[in-house]
């Protein structure tokens, strides 16, 4: 089964002409990677190698997003791994990806990266004479891809430019590196003004506002609850993404979905920006079908045994997941958490809220990516064509 698109996406290293070189700290040193001190158990990943720490290190670079950091962590894993066959290597990679996914609080982005890289490794033609050479080649290709991928944002920004008219008013959400690059790029040629949401609780919208204002773009922060109020004034909505999924939908910082719903209601275009390494083979059927959804999210404080639980307990079956059923009339419990003076949410209350949400494909007008400007259907066809082999 040949997946025609993959080799094209992770290109061979020959065309080095105009790439951004990543900072040296990001790319793990290959020579250092071949550590001979783990020969006691050559078939497993050396214990001293902490893939999560490597991932975190890669992620600390402000230019590197989660999928790329995951790819870099996996290349590091390859160079450290003593696997002697392709099967062992793929298994080591899968284990590494799983370890990463378990430890990260929000695994969606890194899963997309791991998936891409493992698919690439499995499809990579292994014609090398020796397996160590093949591994070196894989490491080189992975790192090369990661460095090339830093160019993707510029491509996306260039493509977005055609859709930004002079004097546009743009609404964006929270902070996204690719949106920032697109807006700053547009600012060079056109007059734009930007509304950005505050994006509680992390308040990343303020960061967007600071950076845009510093660049001379008129920018106003709006409350997350004022999206519907401001929507009439904007020309279109531009959001970044954590991942673009197989349904053609979008996973992004919580609040994107409501923005999309309101944009649809007001008939404003809703554009998502995503580099192609954020394309992820995942098909969420609802908000609660995301890997980030935990039972604690949206749970109600547990007063006495609710009627539902009592009923199911008597039938010897556990009660249904509280997040998936509609709230029944539970007798109001005394609020255990006193309101603070400032009337802000306590960390416990915030913890019951999601970090990301899922936007359905029918709410998205277009997805701008380095592989082209795609409709949501186009995204899903691209993903199906790439992985469904």
């Amino acid at each position, binding site marked *: *089964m*040949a*997946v025609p698109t993959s080799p094209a996406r992770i290109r061979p290293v020959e065309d080095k002409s105009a790439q951004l070189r990543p900072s040296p700290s990001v790319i793990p040193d290959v020579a250092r990677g071949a550590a001979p001190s783990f020969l006691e158990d050559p078939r497993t990943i050396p214990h001293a190698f902490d893939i999560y720490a490597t991932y975190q290190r890669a992620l600390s670079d402000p230019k590197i997003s989660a999928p790329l950091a995951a790819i870099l962590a996996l290349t590091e894993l390859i160079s450290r791994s003593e696997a002697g066959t392709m099967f062992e290597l793929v298994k080591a990679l899968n284990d590494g990806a799983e370890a990463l996914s378990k430890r990260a609080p929000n695994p969606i982005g890194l899963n997309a990266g791991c998936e891409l890289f493992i698919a690439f490794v499995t499809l990579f033609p292994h014609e090398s004479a020796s397996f160590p050479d093949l591994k070196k080649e894989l490491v080189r290709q992975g790192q090369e891809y990661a460095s090339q991928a830093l160019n993707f944002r510029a491509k996306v920004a260039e493509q977005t430019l055609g859709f930004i008219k002079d004097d546009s008013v743009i609404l964006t959400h929270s902070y996204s590196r690719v949106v920032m690059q697109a807006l700053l790029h547009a600012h060079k040629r056109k007059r734009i003004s930007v509304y950005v949401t505050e994006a509680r609780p992390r308040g990343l919208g303020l960061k967007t506002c600071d950076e845009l204002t510093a660049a001379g773009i008129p920018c106003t922060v709006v409350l997350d609850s004022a999206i519907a109020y401001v929507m009439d004034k904007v020309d279109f909505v531009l959001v970044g993404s954590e991942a673009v999924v197989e349904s053609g939908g979008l996973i992004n910082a919580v609040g994107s979905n409501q923005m999309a719903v309101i944009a649809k209601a007001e008939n404003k275009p809703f554009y998502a920006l995503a580099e192609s390494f954020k394309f992820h083979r995942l*098909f969420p059927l*609802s908000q609660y079908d995301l890997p980030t959804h935990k039972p604690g999210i949206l749970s109600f404080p547990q007063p006495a045994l609710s009627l539902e639980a009592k009923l199911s307990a008597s039938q010897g079956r556990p009660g*249904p997941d509280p997040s998936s059923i509609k709230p029944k009339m539970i007798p109001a419990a005394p609020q255990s958490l006193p309101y603070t003076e400032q009337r802000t949410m306590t960390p416990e209350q915030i913890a019951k809220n999601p970090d990301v949400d899922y936007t359905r494909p029918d709410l998205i007008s277009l997805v701008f990516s380095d592989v082209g400007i795609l409709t949501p259907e186009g995204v899903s*066809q691209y993903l*199906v064509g790439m992985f*469904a*082999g």
Partner: protein
Amino acid sequence: MTKAERRELQERQRAAKAAAKAEGGDAKAKGGGKKDGGAAAGGAGGTRKEPAARKETQAAAAAAATARKDAGGGVAVGAGRVSGVHAVAEARGLRIFSHFALQRPVAAAAAKGDVHPAIVRLGLMFASFRICGANARCIATLGAFKEVIQDYSTPPGTTLARHLTTHLSAQISHLVSARPMAVTMGNAIRQLKLDISGSDIDLPEQDAKDALCQKIDDYVRDRIIIADQVIQETAAKKIQNGDVVLTYARSSVVEKVLLQAWEDGTQFSVVIVDSRPMLEGKRLLSILSRAGIPCTYLLLPALGSVIAEASIVFVGAHSIHSNGAVYARAGTALVAMLAKRHSVPVVVCCETYKFSDNVQLDSFTKNELAPLQAFGAQALQGGPSLEVLNPLYDLTPPASITAVVTEVGVIPPDSISSIPLALGRTVF
């Protein structure tokens, strides 16, 4: 020529045409029956009051047309007043649904040509709905073809690669006469014919036949059995604790998915929606409740009152068209549309070998009628003026489907068309 002139010319021509038609019509009406001719004359007489000449001719044409129709009726009545009502009913039925294949009971002796006994037996089982369901029919057909291939010997002067396909065609047409061919069978047969024509002519006959049987086994294993296992695992993960899963009628794949999810330890309950005349959901109900899954059983009219309770809808499919429309048991479209309306995700479980290259826009262009006697249903007491229509399938538009679970992943219905390319099945 100015616009006005052109328009005038057009109208003149149109009037001339209408007049010619009216003349012909009148002549026919007179031939058909005296009273009809009179009606036409009366109609024409009525229009004479109209001032505009063009309008007059048009009205005359219309009157003549009705007269013609009446004349036709008159002839029919004249031909046989005894069976008159029946003839009308039959004509009505034929007009709309004549293209739906209604099974005539096939007699085993009716087999034309060189039909293998296994195929005759299979045909009877198809016709009596003993073997029912796209997967079961495909597996049974391929199994019978294996027997046919093993019992086949190439006549002198031809090769297996050239002659076996024609021999199979006779078997296939017998099966089709029992019940229209399923899309799954069509796909499998197409693949089999491709394999036959590609078989090496230098191979000894028995080896070639064994190789073909092996290919059939591989097809069943890869495209149906393994595919079902993958779908089962993928779809079972979409069921979460506390979910209420709604399903319609019985699909073998959905049944496997639900059993798998229950085996995985997920706690959920199932609402089985069913409908006459086949009441296939009863079997699913007995299988699921034997496994210990809490089930609710109801008929289609009650769907509206329970749909809001459902967290996910799983349905099977007979086939999927390349525009993403799902051709499945009649009633599926209703369930899917109602679920979509209530924002309940609709998930179709379907193997890739059920994909059809055709595009179908409604369930009238192609359908099948269920023979009532096959389900032991007593005939409705309505006399000769009653016509019972039981289409077996309907078409669910892609807009009311959230996702299709296939062995190559969960995909939105719009992307169905990109799958065969990914599978390398560009040429059939």
